[in-house]
């Protein structure tokens, strides 16, 4: 199939960007979206132009690197998929496709479709861990049984891949879904509950410091999340946060 691509090009964080038109031909339905981008880039290189820069790595939907805003949706039209798992059979011959980077104050553009998501790392550094040393002198793994239901819920929250689709989708560029997924995972497990109050306060503070917006319960993040992380996590985080602040932690 033949496609017209309108792609955001931007040289650096401080430069002005713009949409640029590219035509591609010979695209097959079995190709992934990124393979289509590879073909375009090969053509650009052979023509002596600079290829389009974008983040990508595992190409199987788990590393969270890829981050394209396609036709107005994070990771494009599919549900529960990342850009690398999106296949060209989702598009029609002759279609025009708009491709943009994640747009959020806390995710400055590095180049073209590549953005800086290190704010997410700093939110995790603020408390997204259990303070246990890796000495190997921990107790036996089966000494604390955990109800299957809690373990499963913790797992569901823990499957977040940190891609930032939630932020890109949210009209407020809020990072509540990302942050709450980690808070919820650790608050559901006895190992994480000990320092739960400090954790939620520190992570939420860091989130605000990074310049992410507030949550207004629109729910768009959940719809666009490639891993289907549930809004329930946000409710759980709000509960944790309220109870922590009520107990005088700050």
């Amino acid at each position: 199939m033949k496609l017209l691509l309108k792609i955001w090009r931007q040289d650096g964080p401080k430069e002005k960007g713009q949409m640029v038109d590219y035509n591609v031909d010979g695209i097959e339905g079995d190709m992934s979206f990124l393979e289509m981008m590879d073909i375009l880039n090969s053509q650009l290189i052979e023509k002596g132009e600079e290829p389009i820069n974008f983040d990508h790595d595992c190409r199987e939907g788990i590393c969270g690197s890829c981050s394209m805003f396609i036709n107005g949706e994070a990771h494009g039209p599919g549900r529960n998929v990342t850009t690398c798992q999106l296949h060209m059979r989702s598009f029609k011959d002759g279609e025009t496709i708009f491709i943009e980077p994640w747009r959020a104050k806390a995710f400055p553009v590095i180049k073209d479709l590549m953005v800086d998501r290190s704010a997410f790392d700093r939110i995790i550094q603020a408390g997204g861990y259990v303070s246990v040393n890796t000495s190997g002198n921990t107790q036996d793994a089966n000494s604390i049984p955990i109800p299957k239901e809690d373990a499963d819920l913790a797992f569901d929250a823990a499957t977040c891949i940190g891609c930032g689709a939630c932020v890109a989708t949210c009209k407020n560029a809020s990072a509540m879904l990302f942050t709450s997924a980690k808070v919820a995972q650790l608050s559901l497990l006895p190992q994480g509950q000990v320092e739960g109050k400090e954790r939620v306060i520190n992570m939420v503070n860091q989130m605000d410091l990074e310049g992410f917006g507030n949550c207004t319960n629109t729910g768009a993040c959940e719809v666009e999340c490639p891993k289907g992380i549930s809004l329930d996590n946000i409710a759980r985080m709000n509960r944790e946060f309220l109870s922590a602040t009520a107990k005088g932690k700050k």
Partner: protein
Amino acid sequence: MVLDSKTPEGPLKDKWTRHKNEIDLVNPANKRNIDVIVVGTGLAGASASASLAELGYNVKTFCFQDSPRRAHSIAAQGGINAAKNYQGDGDSTYRLFYDTVKGGDYRSRESNVYRLAEVSANIIDQCVAQGVPFARDYGGLLDNRSFGGVLVSRTFYAKGQTGQQLLLGAYSALSRQIAKGKVEMHNRHEMLDLVKVDGKARGIIARNLVTGEIQRHSAHAVVIASGGYGNVFFLSTNAMGSNVTAAWKAHKKGAHMANPCFTQIHPTCIPVSGGFQSKLTLMSESLRNDGRIWVPAKLADAKAIQAGTLQGRDIPEEDRDYYLERRYPAFGNLVPRDVASRAAKERCDEGFGVNKTGEAVYLDFKSAIARYGKEDAFVHGNKTPSAEEIQTLGKAVVASKYGNLFQMYEKITDENPYEMPMKIYPAVHYTMGGLWVDYNLMTDIPGCYAAGEANFSDHGANRLGASALMQGLADGYFVLPYTIGDYLSHEIRTGEIANDSPEFMQAEKEVKDKIDGFINAKGEKPVDHFHMRLGKIMWEKCGMARNAEDLQKAIDEIKALRIEFYANVRVPGLVNGVNQELEKAGRVADLMELGELMCKDALQRTESCGGHFREESVEIDGEQKGEAKRDDENFTFVSAWQWKGESGNQELVKEPLEFKDIAVKQRSYK
């Protein structure tokens, strides 16, 4: 030249304990004055960084991704082995050790494997303490499943995302140390050379992938945990960025490369669908717990399927050849990966493949759906369920076990695996070879260590499923933090290492010259063009089956390709700033040199063992007719290659392998 493995004396089961008691330690005040560089943030790199920082060292960690959480360990699906014996099915440290040595076809170092089995149980305790949400049963205790090549259930898992959960655990421990200022994290940085001063590893040259700046970083020791080199085949289950550069630079500075030809071809991947394809996707080995592998028994049926006139599901039971169950009744569909891959290739080479290219076999859940459906109906009081009810219930059970894998399959292939048998084919997945290391995980460059898939140590000629995660975390959490002290205890008086010594300046200049060379080549073809051609040579001549004639041809072809590459590659853009083509050019240049060495290694090893199958070396008759034939008399050694100034001129050094606690036998899964 003799390579000293520094294996401690004494009985196998006491070696590690005794070694830990005897090695030198660094006192906490001195650790604050010692710097360690870690390259890579997968399971081995992230866990080593976190553990070394907790111990008190100053750690500088590097990854080329935009966050340490994205390293490719994240994509591991099935699980992690540990000799916990929670199932009470006869597992033990010795049995895990035995299975691993046997699975590796007796080409690994006994002492290292035993230590791995010994610390495996600790890993699970550690990860649970970190909040890793492993699968649990209704009693709230940890659940297990089975993997290939073993007869017990010792694999811990988190659905089909075990690697993700373990890596995020290690990433959280690393994040905690970054927050404390004990780890200085360098995201989007790539190591481009190792710097040696007075014979010791003293730092690295790195490129900032955002600004293009070339930096000199010094330290008292360097840990290479940069993963494997499966991308030499272009198409593999590795991430697009996975590369050999860090390890290869260490090799060119004197570290021996061990068993480079030992490559794991994973039997259950989604088949190649077209020439544009950029990577292959694995379907977890755990699927072989319930899925049955088959091809049509009649050639005419296979031809009809290839032509698109017949569907696999319409072939009656009696016309199906469950070839693994037929050839290996004891292990059936759960034979080790190398055996399963070769058997698939054998059937497809005979013309029985089941897609249009003839390079696919079926992985079928029909029996499992029926079995689980009946069980579930029975449990719910329905003693005479209809065929329809069985299907519905059975599919639900299968979905609860493998749902995310089935969904992934459907997205890629556009076929529903609940209705149609999955099509799978072997693909390059893991490299057992890597930097040679001693018992302390140190390469033969003093102060340069290698951990995880980047080293060669534990898997011999074939790795068992769910053992890569185990090894990565064992190295990083429990082995390296101890053994590195033995070396660093002699560094407490060294003081800070200068990063402007002539050695650093020279290395920096060489890196810059190499980069300028790529930019100035101004040829016609993009890097990928050469990478694809390299991959094709490697897959056809150094892939699942190898022979002397093809290997020699491959060496000649790669040499020619390399010359063409330097003359005709086109890297657009500038040295400064983001330049993804420049990153690829450097990686592919190293992969070409590595590919040549892999062929050279495969050529000298005229036996078949594990993933390395030489067509000249098969059993001619008896019960094992047609199976791979090992040659213990002549090849019970590690082949370690020493760089001699030019690609392809490496010299072979042999580290003999001794098996004192395990009887070396023919590896039979029949």
